């Protein structure tokens, strides 16, 4: 059972570490992403949404050095959900023909009007703009920097430390599980459904025991380096450049102009 690790948490995490915008101040990126999100939602204009989508794609390509293929590949994932939701908004079900277009099915009609389609399209566009704004953060900022931003925003330290450690343990446990999975595969553990169920149960149970043991060793290792209940790291200083702030304000001003026009 060969498998590759190209999707899932690995890939988004890796993109964030490789991003050309990783050196930007994380708090600045958060403000930019959240601000743009708010503009996109508040303006509620297809032109603004489209501008947000295109501008952020250009930013990810130009400054983030992300290939458009990767970027739109990721955007497509959410687009699939949005289109399904949009279709549900655009269409209506009725027993008599209504609206501008109908599809006749046994017992009922699926109908849509030009207005409802326009509304659904602008909704999908708006949601996609919001998703792009969040991708701006997710694809350029590593999880630990996000936690640091939250910590500075006065989220309780306990929650921040939990998030930080969970992030690290996800990879430790994934690694452990991957190895156990391979070991089970090497002994034909996935040959048929019944064996697979047993092997999965076994590895999952084992993972739990190992995780418990691991946590004890970890707390020893942390105590050995003087941990006393307060998780502290040296964060790299990433100063905000004036040009970045000016760029952000210009972008927002352009969005306001688009919204008012």
């Amino acid at each position, binding site marked *: 059972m060969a498998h590759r690790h190209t999707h899932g948490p690995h890939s988004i*995490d*890796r993109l964030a*570490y490789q991003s050309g915008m*990783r050196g930007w101040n994380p708090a600045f990126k958060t403000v930019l992403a959240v601000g743009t999100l708010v503009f996109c939602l508040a303006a509620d204009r297809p032109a603004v949404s489209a501008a947000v989508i295109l501008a952020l794609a250009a930013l990810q390509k130009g400054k983030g050095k992300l290939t458009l293929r990767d970027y739109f590949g990721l955007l497509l994932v959410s687009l699939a959900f949005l289109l399904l939701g949009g279709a549900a908004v655009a269409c209506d079900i009725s027993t008599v023909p209504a609206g501008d277009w109908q599809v006749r099915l046994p017992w009922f009609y699926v109908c849509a009007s030009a207005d409802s389609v326009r509304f659904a399209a602008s909704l999908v566009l708006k949601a996609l703009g919001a998703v792009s704004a969040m991708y701006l953060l997710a694809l350029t900022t*590593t*999880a*630990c920097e996000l936690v640091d931003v939250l910590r500075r925003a006065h989220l309780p330290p306990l929650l921040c430390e939990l998030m*930080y*450690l969970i*992030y*690290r343990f996800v*990879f*430790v446990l994934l*690694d452990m599980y991957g190895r156990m999975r391979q070991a089970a595969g090497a002994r034909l553990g996935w040959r048929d459904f019944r064996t697979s169920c047993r092997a999965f149960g076994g590895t999952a149970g084992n993972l739990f025991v190992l995780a418990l043991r*691991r946590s004890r*060793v*970890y707390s*020893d*290792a*942390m*105590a*050995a*380096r*003087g*941990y*006393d209940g307060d998780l*502290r*790291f*040296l*964060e*790299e200083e990433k100063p905000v450049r004036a040009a970045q702030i000016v760029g952000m304000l210009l972008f927002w001003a352009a969005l306001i102009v688009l919204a008012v026009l």
Partner: protein
Amino acid sequence: MQPILQVRDLRFCYDSGVPALDGVSLDVHAGERIAVLGPNGAGKSTFFLCLNGVLAPESGQILLDGKPVDKKARKTLCERVGIVFQNADDQIIASTVASEVSFGPMNLRLPRNEVARRVDHALEYMDLQAFRARPPHDLSGGEKKRVSIADILAMESEVILLDEPAASLDPAGEERLERVLARLSDEGRTLLISTHDVDFAFRWATRAVVFFAGRILADDAPQTVFGDAALLRQAHLRRPVLAEVFDVLRAQGMAPPDAACPTTVGALARLLGEK
């Protein structure tokens, strides 16, 4: 000379009830290179954790610079005695190499610029500057090991305990590790290394301590320890290859019969050259 660390009749017991340390006494002098030998489960790792102050011994005493370390002063043990864990993944907690190395110095409550200096120095020392912004789950086993050593270097502990550091390293990694150990020793650090590699212990250590079932079986110069066949059998150790070869050479009359066994291949070559 005042030993830097003195251990008096240390006893420790895990939940299973079997004593992991059963009356261990040892003096460690500054600048010593001590190889801690013995089979798995002999108490080496537990001993290290007690020395570093993570585990509180049930009885017995640890003296730092001649002053007994009580419960309150256990933190000073952490500061002055660093421990590199056997499995680097058990030790690494941060999400980038640089912040990982900063964890120890930050816990020492040092000022920011001092922490930054120490992190830079430790990364330079372990040749990790190129990795500073990388996440640890992206590194190979050998690279993670180097990070875990840099972790302790950044704390600038006088005594460094390494728990089987060469386990899971490739030959190039082992060579690099030995270079680092030699440099640390030259700089006057005190090193205790637990290892199963008798050849390494023989050429590197100034002193060999053999653990068995929670006690110290032997504590002497490596040449003496590895010359005691009964002791080696009891502690499940084998003789270093160099000692075996030297015996053969001596039996064949190719080495002087009264010379002590040289600890390195270079020293053996010199000895044979003299003859």
